[in-house]
């Protein structure tokens, strides 16, 4: 994982988010205030603008800069959470020029941990953490087991997907949906949908980038 690969992946995330506009948008209208898609899109757009200046920067610093930029761009609940994710990842990868799979998995885990801390939330509260925590755990395990990339990506995408769907049956105790009580039942958490879309996009990019030999 180097910086150009990260930027490639983020460009893929942007495309995927835009392709899922209708659903992400309608989820936050149903149990939030309708701005989640717009917030995330605003974040994606600013990344496109800053991408050129990041190309030569090492991954840790690039991720930190991305986090700082998003902090001043997205706003809302998702803004500070997404930025703390990137900043924590950046911090973990500080000084590592080409992080390997395990280092990347550890950085991802520290990013998720930062979201937990900032949002004072955990699994089962119907927030983006319901996708991020299980995905992070699985990533750590698969990286530790040296799972081949195609299998690793397929499993992560799958994990994100069913955990995203599972938020449908949850009552929220954090974020705006918590104000709705039982009325949040039957709706997927918008933040989870965004995370799922992003994770799937990153996995696809990674798979496209790997050469057959790297696939191991």
């Amino acid at each position, binding site marked *: 994982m180097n910086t150009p690969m990260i930027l490639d992946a983020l460009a893929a995330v942007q495309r995927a988010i835009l392709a899922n506009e209708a659903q992400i948008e309608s989820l936050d209208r149903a149990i939030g*205030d*309708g*701005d989640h898609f717009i917030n995330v899109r605003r974040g994606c757009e600013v990344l496109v603008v800053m991408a050129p200046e990041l190309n030569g920067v090492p991954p840790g610093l690039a991720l930190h800069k991305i986090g700082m930029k998003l902090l001043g761009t997205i*706003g*809302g609940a998702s803004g*500070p959470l997404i930025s703390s994710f990137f900043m924590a990842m950046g911090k973990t990868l500080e000084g590592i020029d080409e992080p390997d799979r395990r280092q990347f998995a550890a950085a991802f885990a520290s990013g998720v941990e930062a979201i937990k801390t900032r949002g004072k939330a955990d699994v089962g509260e119907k927030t983006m953490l319901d996708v991020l925590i299980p995905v992070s755990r699985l990533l750590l395990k698969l990286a530790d087991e040296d799972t081949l990339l195609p299998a690793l990506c397929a499993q992560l995408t799958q994990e994100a997907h069913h955990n995203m769907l599972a938020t449908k049956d949850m009552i929220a105790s954090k974020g705006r949906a918590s104000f709705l009580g039982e009325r949040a039942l039957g709706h997927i958490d918008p933040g989870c949908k965004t995370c799922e879309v992003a994770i799937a996009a990153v996995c696809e990019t990674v798979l496209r980038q790997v050469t057959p030999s790297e696939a191991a």
Partner: protein
Amino acid sequence: MKKFINDIESVMRESLGGMVDAHPGLLRVEFEPTFVARAERSVNKVALISGGGSGHEPLHAGYVGQGMLDAACAGQVFTSPTPDQILAAASSVHSGRGVLLIVKNYSGDLMNFQIASEMMDIENATVLVNDDVAVENSTHTTGRRGVAGTVMVEKMVGAAAERGGSLLECKEIGDRVNAATASMGVAFTSCTVPAAGRTTFDIGADEMEIGVGIHGEPGRRREKVKPASLIVDELLHSILADLKPARGSEVLLHANGFGGTPLMELYLLYHCAAEKLRAEGLKPVRSLVGNYTTALEMAGASLTVTVLDDELKSLWDAPVHTAALRW
């Protein structure tokens, strides 16, 4: 979507520009990052900064001025502002006695203000407003929202700061006003976030949402529309159950419109509510009626009650000169 706008991207900028055009002696606006501040810097007083998503006007920029806020940070519509705005506002308006952040209790507002608070090299404290009794409070959840009671907090803390109160005293007043204040609202329609282009929820021609917030989002429960006095009974029942004011207490009663309800109806609600409070042995001795904490063009209204004591009453009565409140 029919709105007086030119470009979805520039709504906030043009609207804040208009505020300063209309009140040049009172307000100044900065962009990149965005905040509105008093035209004249205040000296030797605790600096009060609030903010939140746009779409609740006159909250918060309409409350910047003598006797209320020093600065307001506006986010995109219904999206809390970012820490850089809050930091820039703080360093622009503080005068050496610390900064008090007045924050409505939403995950987004809270986190953005918290980050700013952590990054700020100025002594600061935070008052969290969570007056909405439609939402059950619990330590394990986000808790209650901050809604129209924010105006009471900003007004009274504003007066305390103007009188020379310390950062701690101002925070204590803010917490006290918040604890003495409860609100609940009902909506007849949702509203349209400009960038989204359609209403946040759909609702039947004879339905209302009970216990709504101020983001055009669904409330706790949907019901058939009923007479104003029954709506008032329901709202005040929850409010009083929460506040449990002693019989004979003096209260401030606020009938707040969400943006799409005529003043005629707000006064009618006020009338029903004042009668009901009197019937409960309470004394509505101070009033505020109008669109003070809105949700764009949402039709609906909330009632807010603040239980007064002599200090809070004098803080409410203290002079104020802002775009939206003046006496």
